[in-house]
């Protein structure tokens, strides 16, 4: 039980938020990727967070990525018979990704990451001031 635990908690949380951001980046990058069949189309991914208890009493908990889930939404069928990957009916299948909602998620993830950085900075200041107790 020490204030250094706040470093560990915030550190693990930063890892989780970084993973969330890379998942969102992956979704954004593949928003236009098409495939010949709905099964082969890219499925949007989303991270699911889980609290990790740091002590038996449950008074402190960090966070980690429990699972990266794939979207169960159907792929969008786009009529484009000239596309090299078009199937025999002329359709290509794109993932059902909304760039606007992915961007909102990205902004939320980066705000959380920044908050964790501020927590670490403040904790570092407190530790410095603790080291100075009693010094003239």
């Amino acid at each position: 039980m020490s204030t250094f635990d706040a470093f560990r908690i915030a550190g693990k949380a930063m890892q989780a938020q970084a993973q969330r951001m890379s998942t969102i980046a992956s979704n954004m990058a593949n928003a236009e990727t098409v495939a010949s069949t709905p099964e082969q189309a890219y499925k949007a991914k989303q991270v699911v967070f889980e609290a990790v208890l740091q002590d038996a009493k449950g008074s402190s908990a960090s966070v980690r990525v429990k699972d990266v889930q794939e979207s169960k939404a159907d792929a969008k069928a786009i009529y484009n018979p000239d596309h090299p990957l078009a199937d025999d009916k002329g359709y290509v299948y794109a993932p059902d990704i909304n760039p606007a909602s992915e961007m909102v998620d990205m902004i939320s993830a980066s705000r959380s990451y920044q908050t964790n950085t501020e927590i670490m900075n403040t904790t570092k200041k407190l530790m410095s001031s603790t080291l100075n107790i009693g010094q003239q």
Partner: protein
Amino acid sequence: MDKIQQLMQPYGQALKLRAKRQETITSNIVNADTPGYQAKDMDFAKTFQNVLTGKNKPVAGMVTNKGHIPLQPEKVNSLRSQQVYETLRPEQGSLDNNTVDLDRERGAFAENTLKYEAASKAMSGSIAAMRAALQQ
């Protein structure tokens, strides 16, 4: 316990409790996106009261058989049983049952940081007073 230790003990306990509360608030902040997470906070006044008056200290376990090993209270982290936590009720409901209110947690974090610094300054002040007395 000698007189100087007796004088310094409440300051040390206050610092330890402030650090523990900092951990709890940090846990709330990092779990702001975790589904189902229940925000907690330490009731500092009650906890500090318990610690100052020695209430709720762990006691030696009763043994009903000579072969049983009794609980050893000196080895148990006594501050843990004296800590009082409350689960926070959310201002607004949320779809994923997460009860963390980030604005409240940010305020609590800033307040606890300030009080930690105040406790460490108080300790320094008491050491400075002792030093001044020694130099008379």
